[in-house]
C-alpha cells in the first residue's frame, strides 16, 4: 500500500521541480539525487513549507495539497527532521521532546522509553547548547518520533556527522524504523547510506524524477546508474545475501563493481567471506580498457569491473558460469 502519493510542480527562481512519485507505507524510501537536484525543496513541498504551483499530495488517502488547496504544515501529519537539528534553545532537552509529545494526536510513546532507545536519557535536563552534533541529531529524531507523524521526512540529518558517528546515527535510524514501525523518506546523496537504509528509492536530478520503485530494480536502470560517479557503479544486494561487518542488520548493501572479484571456477581456500555463484548476463565495454560484467546470482544481479585482459584470460562470455568474490569489509 502506498502511504504517499505526490505529484509536485513548483518553480523557485529559475529552478523547476517536477516530480510524480509514490512511496510505500511500511518501508524506508531513499530520496536520492546529486547535490542541487531539489531534494530538500521536494521535502519542504511535501511538508507544506512550500506551496505547489500545481499538482497534488496525498498522505494515507488524505489530500494535503491539490488545486486551490494547501493544508498548512501543522495539519498534514508529516514529521520533518531537518539537516540542522533545530532544537528549541529556550527549552531543555526534556522540554523539547515534551513539546512534541503534548501536541501528538495520541501519545503512545513514553518519553522515558524513547530517551532510553536513543541513548539520551542522561541529557534530558541539559540545555540545548551543551550537546554535541551527534547528540543533537538523536534528540531531533526522538522529538520527531514522539510527535507521532503519519510519515517522517528526514532531510539528511546525518550530513553534519562523519565517520563512526554517522554510521551509528544511521544504525539508530534504521533501528527506530523497525522498532516504532514508522514509514520514512530519507534524503541522501550517498548511495551507501541509501542502500543500508532503504528498500525503495525515488531518484531525482535537476528537479526531475529519474527513477522510482524497489531499490534492487531501480539500481539496474541505466538512468539511475547515470546519476552515479564511475567509481560508485554497482548493484544493491539484500542484506541476507552477504556477510557484512556491521552490527545492526542493514536493509541492503551497495556493492561497487570495483570491489568485486570474478573467478571462472569455484574458488577454494580463499579469505573472501562471500562467494556468489552466477551466470554472466551482460558485458559492457567502458572507457580505459575496462569491462563492466553483470552476473545474475541467486541474490540478484552483481556488477564487477574487470580489465579487458582479465575478461580474455577468464574466457568470460554471456551465459557462462562465474563466481563473484566480496570481502566482508567491502560492505
Amino acid at each position, binding site marked *: 500500500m502506498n502511504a504517499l502519493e505526490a505529484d509536485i510542480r513548483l518553480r523557485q527562481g529559475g529552478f523547476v521541480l517536477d516530480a510524480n512519485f509514490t512511496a510505500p507505507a511500511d518501508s524506508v524510501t531513499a530520496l536520492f539525487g546529486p547535490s542541487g537536484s531539489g531534494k530538500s525543496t521536494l521535502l519542504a513541498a511535501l*511538508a507544506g*513549507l512550500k506551496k505547489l504551483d500545481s499538482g497534488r499530495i496525498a498522505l494515507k488517502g488524505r489530500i494535503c495539497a491539490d488545486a486551490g488547496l494547501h493544508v*498548512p*504544515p*501543522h*495539519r498534514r501529519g*508529516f*514529521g*520533518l527532521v*531537518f539537516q*540542522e537539528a*533545530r*532544537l*528549541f*534553545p*529556550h527549552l531543555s532537552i526534556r522540554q523539547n521532546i515534551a*513539546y*512534541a509529545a503534548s*501536541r*501528538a*494526536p495520541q501519545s503512545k510513546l513514553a518519553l522515558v522509553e524513547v530517551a532510553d532507545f536513543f541513548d539520551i536519557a542522561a541529557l534530558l535536563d541539559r540545555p*540545548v*547548547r551543551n550537546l554535541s552534533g551527534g547528540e543533537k541529531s538523536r534528540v531531533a529524531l526522538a*522529538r*520527531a518520533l514522539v*510527535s507521532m507523524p503519519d510519515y517522517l521526512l528526514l532531510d539528511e540529518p546525518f550530513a553534519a556527522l562523519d565517520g563512526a558517528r554517522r554510521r551509528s546515527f544511521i544504525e539508530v535510524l534504521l533501528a527506530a524504523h523497525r522498532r516504532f514501525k514508522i514509514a520514512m523518506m530519507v534524503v541522501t546523496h550517498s548511495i551507501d547510506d541509501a542502500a543500508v537504509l532503504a528498500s525503495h528509492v525515488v531518484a531525482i536530478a535537476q528537479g526531475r524524477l529519474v527513477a522510482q520503485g524497489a531499490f534492487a530494480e531501480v539500481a539496474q536502470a541505466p538512468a539511475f546508474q547515470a546519476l552515479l560517479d564511475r567509481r560508485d557503479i554497482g548493484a544493491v544486494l539484500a542484506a541476507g545475501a552477504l556477510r557484512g561487518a556491521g552490527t545492526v542488520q542493514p536493509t541492503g548493501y551497495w556493492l561497487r563493481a570495483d570491489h568485486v572479484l570474478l573467478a571462472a571456477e569455484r574458488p577454494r581456500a580463499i579469505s573472501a567471506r562471500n562467494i556468489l555463484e552466477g551466470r554472466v548476463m551482460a558485458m559492457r565495454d567502458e572507457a580505459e580498457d575496462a569491462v563492466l560484467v553483470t552476473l545474475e546470482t541467486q541474490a540478484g544481479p552483481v556488477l564487477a569491473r574487470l580489465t579487458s585482459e582479465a575478461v580474455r584470460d577468464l574466457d568470460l562470455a554471456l551465459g557462462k558460469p562465474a563466481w563473484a568474490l566480496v570481502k566482508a569489509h567491502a560492505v
Partner: protein
Amino acid sequence: MLPAAEFEILVTSFAVASRALIGALPFAIAAAWLLSRPRMPGRILLDGLIHLPVILPPVLVGFLLLVIFGRRGPAGALLERLFGLHLAFTMAGAALATAVMIFPLLVRSIRLAFEAADTRLFEAAAMLRAGPMDRFLTMALPLAGPGILAGAVTAFAAAMGEFGAVITFAANIPGQTQTLPLAIYAVLQEPGGEAEAMRLALISFAVAMCGLIAAEFLQRRARRRQAG
C-alpha cells in the same frame, strides 16, 4: 529621605509611567509582530503611523489627543457616555499621552527582538503540529522575551520623562498629572526654584540611569539566549 512633596511627584511619575507601559505593551507587541512579518500588507503605512509621535512636536500630539479624546472630541464623548470616563486633565489621560509617545520606542525594540529570532525554529515547531497562535505563544514570545523586557524597561525610563504631550493633554495637576519633568517646569516658574529644580533633576537622572543599565543587562541576556 525624600520630602513628602517630592515623594508624591515620584509616585505620580511611576503611576503614570507604569499605566502607560502596561496599556501600550500588548498593542506594541501586536504591532511589532505584524511589522516583523515580511509579507504583511500595508506594512509601510502601519510603520509610518506608529512612528508619527517621533516626528510630530509633542505639544501637537497632546493637542491632537485633546481634539480626539477631549470632552467634545468624538472618542472622548463616546467614552464619557459609555463609561463615564474622562481622560483630559486626569492621570489616565497623562498615561494615555505618555503611552502614545513611548509607543514607537517600544515597537522598535520589540520588533528587533522578533526579527532576531530564528524563523527556522517556527518551521520546526509547525512540523511538530504547532499552529500559528501556538507558535507565537510558545516560540516567538519566549524567544523574544528578554528583548521585549529590555525594550519595556527603556520605554519605562522614557515614560518617566514625557513632557509636551502630557502637559498639553493632562495639564500640570499635583498628585494627579504632575510627573517629574512637569514638576521641574513648575518650580522653575517660581522665583528661587532652581535648587528645588536641581534636586528633582537629580532624581530624574538617577531613575533614567537605572532604567538604561537594567535594559542593557537584559539585552545581554537576550543575546545569550538567542545564541542557544
